[in-house]
């Protein structure tokens, strides 16, 4: 089990940045990655989950309860012992049924002992970790809805098959898809916090580097991991610093005004844009080790926080990134 190291991914800086922000503050609300296949989307997400320090959970808890939450899950977990487990990374397959995602009646128990017991699904498994959905644009709408609901509320509420269960499910939702194969409905898109566009680098050197690193990784994953361990450790430290700093980062009023003016200039629909810009800017400041949010943080996160919220104008050929850059130039000069 040797994952490709996070820092060994060539280029794709914006995607890596968005993932780091989401890792610092999961409340940002998920990352949507647009791009072709084979651009390192899932590699990056998996790699990030793999380098994060293990979480502490109540021993044997099927819902991954943190020790402070012990006993709050439907089981409920009673063990006094705790155990370390790796940060969960759940890869939701396209064909997953509702049962598998939200959980269902434990058939085995029901058959054997006539006992009504809840069998946790993928959402419970992803608690305190990452939920990755490839080709989210091909997923059935009702599932996407459900996932976004749970991601936003941090709680999975099951009311079906005579079961009435609720349990915590806090995770970073990462969706990916290629807009050329069908689009996600704008209402659903809007509920993602950040969105980034990825493309394989178009320069010769970068491509050679990709091939070289893949080959080294394949030949000797362990040695390749060692080579990048220091760089990965640095990223882990940055995330840890960001997380501990986040609650104390101050947000001055003028930055709030900046964010609002920017959203107005972009004609971003709804209030989510402003909120996400603020959250992401705070996370960005925390990640950089700053004490207060500054305008540069807002500018740094604006494209990924707003790109997918711009109203689509069929006759305007300009890409959304350009429109945001234009708005930034307009508002901040």
């Amino acid at each position, binding site marked *: *089990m*040797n*994952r490709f190291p996070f820092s060994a991914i060539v280029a794709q800086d914006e995607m890596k940045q968005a993932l780091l922000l989401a890792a610092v503050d999961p409340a940002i609300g998920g990352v949507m990655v647009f791009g*072709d*296949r*084979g*651009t*390192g989307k*899932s590699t990056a997400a*998996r790699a990030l989950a793999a380098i994060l320090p293990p979480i502490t959970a109540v021993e044997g808890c099927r819902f991954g309860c943190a020790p402070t939450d012990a006993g709050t899950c439907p089981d409920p977990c009673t063990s006094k012992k705790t155990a370390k487990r790796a940060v969960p990374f759940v*890869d939701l*397959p*396209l*064909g*997953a*049924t*509702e049962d598998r995602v939200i959980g269902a*009646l434990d*058939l*085995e128990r*029901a*058959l*054997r002992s*006539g*006992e*009504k017991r809840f069998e946790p699904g993928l959402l419970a498994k992803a608690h305190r970790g990452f939920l990755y959905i*490839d*080709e989210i*644009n*091909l997923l059935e709408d009702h599932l996407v809805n459900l996932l976004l609901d749970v991601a936003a509320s941090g709680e999975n509420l099951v009311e*079906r*098959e*005579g079961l009435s269960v609720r349990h915590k499910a806090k995770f970073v939702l990462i969706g990916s898809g*290629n*807009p*050329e*194969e*069908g*689009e*996600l*409905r704008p209402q659903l898109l809007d509920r993602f916090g950040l969105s980034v566009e990825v*493309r*394989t680098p*178009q320069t*010769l050197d970068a*491509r*050679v580097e*990709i*091939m*070289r690193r*893949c*080959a080294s990784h*394949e*030949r*000797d994953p362990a040695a390749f991991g060692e080579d990048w361990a220091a760089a990965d450790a640095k990223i882990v430290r940055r995330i840890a610093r960001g997380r501990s700093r986040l609650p104390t980062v101050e947000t001055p009023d003028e930055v709030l005004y900046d964010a609002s003016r920017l959203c107005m200039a972009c004609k971003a629909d709804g209030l989510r844009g402003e909120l996400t810009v603020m959250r992401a800017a705070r996370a960005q400041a925390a990640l950089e080790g700053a004490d207060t949010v500054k305008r540069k943080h807002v500018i740094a996160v604006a494209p990924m926080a707003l790109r997918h919220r711009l109203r*689509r104008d*069929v*006759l305007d*050929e300009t890409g959304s990134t350009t429109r945001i850059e234009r708005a930034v130039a307009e508002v901040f000069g």
Partner: protein
Amino acid sequence: MTTPPASPAAEDAALALRAFALWPAGFGGLWLRGPGPARDALVERLGSTVRLKRMPAHIDSERLHGGIDLAASLAAGRSVLRSGFLEEARGAIVLAPLAERITASLAGSVAQALDHADTAERFGLVLLDDGAEHDEVPPLSLTERVAFACDLGNAAPAGFDATELPAPLASPAEIPVCSAEGLEALAAVSLALGVDSGRALRFAALAAGASARLAGRETVRESDLAAAARLVLAPRATRLPPPPPEDNAEPPPPPPPPQDSDADTPGDEEQEDNGKPDPDQLIEAAAAAIPPGLLEALAAGRTRRGAGSGGGARHLSPLRGRPLAARQGLPRGGARLALIDTLRAAVPWQALRRAEGDALTGLRIMKDDVRVRRFEARSASVTIFAVDASGSAAFTRLAEAKGAVELLLAQAYVKRTEVALVAFRGSEAQLLLPPTRSLTRARRALSELPGGGGTPLAAGLSMVCTLGTGLTRRGYTPLLVLLTDGRGNIALDGGTNRATATEDAMKAGRAIATAGLAGVVIDISPRPRPEAAAIASAMRARYVPLPQASAATLSKVIGALT
């Protein structure tokens, strides 16, 4: 070492087969197109050394992932677990017949297993693709994850039984690594062909090494790089390299076997000791190996299947279509009761309900157990725009036609329709936009639509006719919208005789009428003339003269007709 197989295509297929056998988990698999006996021979050869497992295209998710076997559990009175197909397939080679029919959801699960972090847990995948049309291909998520693609067409078996399969390597480190120049050359090929996937890059480098290893060498030579470019990069090409070879724009739909793939391939043997590989030559070799019809397939919707199974080309229907898993709900609003699923949902609860309650005998079925059937039906309508982009009067109208297509597309997801765009100008017609609801693609296709040249009306009409009948076969209802001034001046054979051109156009128009395709002809010449009306009557389509059409009025007219 091996008896030389008959054709270069078969030779490449044999090489791909041997490279794949070296490290099945690393290469992911093979995509074998064409239902001929050559393919069967190849599969049989593979089966003689490794364990093959067949995966039917209709396998359900329970069988795929395993779990509790309900029937056996009930009979035995204890829970009986059944292993899943994906689990059983570990370390084997999975054969996927009818790969072009694999659904996106099955492909998703299989793709996930192919991506497993631990290569020992993975399996090799052989996609047996019987697709006849360009756009009938296996899901992209699978073709992306298998290294090699070979089109064997209907070729006769060609010495595959004599192909010597190497034993799997103990460690991937035994595969030689490309030199820096070699990697650079492969990167240059990938850029020139517009191959943008990191996986393709990885496969290409690996394939070059495998080719060297199979030849018993420790260093990767130019011939190995050329083989990698042919086998891995060429089938993934999305564009032709900058100086386009002239023999590549033939549009016959059925893909013939790539016979001329070696014609321009630099002779491998002579160049082996040149030292530094020449990227230009590699690009040329790879371009020559691009399967004929591939680029047309791209134009005709590389992503057709993805798009088809995606955001809205399909919709749920309570009454007809492909059956889907039953869902909880009451049988009303046209939905029908799914009896078996209802019973299945109720059965596990019987012990509990009996313990809880009343003295009734028999099954206790509650409202929560009730399941209804669901089906997936193809969406109903596709509007095909055929735009006259010739140099005549239509030229000034091109912008308006573009605008109208975009306006309609914007409404597409409300009205559940799709839009396709055919343009004809110069000497031929072109399918610029296969049926789609993707704004991104539509906008790009439209912005690239050039104007000027002659009016090959006949070619345009016959392409629309082919497209329309194809769509009807697949369960769509096409509506043709022809924007022209009706003055065709290029005949089907490319001649400029106006009389022949008109005759051909009328013939094509009558073919459309015979096929029973509904349509409307919009006359966009500044002064309406009889020609366009004549075409309309040949097509048995409505004729709308629209001398002052703007994008908005056009879309209103079409909207009123649909």
